[in-house]
């Protein structure tokens, strides 16, 4: 495979590695429980990210469930998919869709922060609900993995430099001659 100079560009490489680490962390983030809710007179409950969404749905809060599902499931996955697309586009022939890819990058950069929602949620619950045996919330290791996914994808997006798509295009101020 013929690799363009752009891929050896250190920022693209760093971004690829960070994204890879985020993909690895996705598995424990969704498989492990993120928090533990103990209420008096009810069985204790370990919730993962997706079971939290289902619980909201069953409580009749469909809109809220949709928001949380988007922020903590769709956004990280779409972000990683988008990053993969961008990283693939830096390899091989110069891209024909520099403008589209730059827009995709801007979108990924913009939506990235919203997946912190679940981390803030668990943080607030574990800080606020502390009534001993009556009701208490404890964070569980899954939230560390999820936080790592969010931070790693944000770092990967930050490291990626969309100017690699424009390397073959001359800057318009160089076109005077």
């Amino acid at each position: 495979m013929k690799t363009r100079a752009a891929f050896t560009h250190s920022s693209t490489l760093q971004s690829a590695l960070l994204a890879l680490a985020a993909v690895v962390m996705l598995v424990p983030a969704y498989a492990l429980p993120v928090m533990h809710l103990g209420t008096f007179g009810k069985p204790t409950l370990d919730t993962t990210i997706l079971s939290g969404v289902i619980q909201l749905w069953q409580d009749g809060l469909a809109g809220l469930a949709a928001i949380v599902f988007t922020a903590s499931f769709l956004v990280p996955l779409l972000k990683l998919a988008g990053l993969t697309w961008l990283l693939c586009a830096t390899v091989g022939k110069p891209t024909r869709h520099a403008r589209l890819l730059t827009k995709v990058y801007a979108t990924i950069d913009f939506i990235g922060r919203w997946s912190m929602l679940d981390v803030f949620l668990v943080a607030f619950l574990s800080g606020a609900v502390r009534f001993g045996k009556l009701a208490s919330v404890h964070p569980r290791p899954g939230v560390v993995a999820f936080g790592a996914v969010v931070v790693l994808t944000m770092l990967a997006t930050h490291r990626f430099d969309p100017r690699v798509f424009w390397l073959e295009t001359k800057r318009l101020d160089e076109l005077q001659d």
Partner: protein
Amino acid sequence: MLESRYLSPRLRAKQTLPPYHSDVVVVQLPRVIGINSRGIAAIRRTKRPRSVPIVGVGVRLTPFERRAGACFCMAADDSLLRCPLCGQSHSTPVLKRGQRALCVRCGTVIAEHDRLGGKNATLALTLTGLFLAIPSLVLPLVTLEKFGRERVTVLTAGFEGFWTHGFESLGMLVLLCGTLAPFGLLGLLATIILTESNIAFQKWNGRLRRWADAIEYWAMPEVQVLGVMVAFFKLGDVVNLTVGPGLWCYGATSLFTLMAWRRFHLQPAQPRPPALASAATVAE
């Protein structure tokens, strides 16, 4: 010569490029003229003057941009405005109120002159945010009650929760993203705007701008507001909750942070003061 695939059909036919200093695409922002009975803002777009060409160099305008009246704008001076995404440099545009400058190559919004005033409005937003930051740190965020036992939480509850349960790193992350970064950003913005005209602070001004740029990426107060609201609904059947004044103040702070940052980073760079410009020439 620009590769022809980057040219709009109209320019491909002409193959002539306008001079360097006419290279930002300016679009008119939609103007809100009222609210109708359904509560939806009615929007009227200002018509573009017929004499102004609607093409940007090398871009195919989206229908929205074209309808909004995209056109060229004239240069103010020779200082450069660089697109943060694709690296294209532009001359500093002179924007009228309600106009927005797009990068000529990738279409990113790089400058905006909205309908409020100039720097003073940004400073006002920043200072309002800073003043509200104090009550949002001190006043109760949410009060919880279970079987007569009451618990008052403040803004740092999230940090406290993670820290006391042994998740120190996440506690620091939550503190940074929800509290330190947004409030620090507001402080930096106020300092930058207040010392901008002072030549003695020029070096520090640039440094502070870079810090503000770095810190902004991690400031997400609006996400924390949403997180607390989701928690509020989630806990509805477990404990009794009351929203405290701290949450309102924090919500307002996060709104003002967003508005101030948007206005701040979309304002085109000011032309250099003459004294500094001549000093630079001497140094060369």
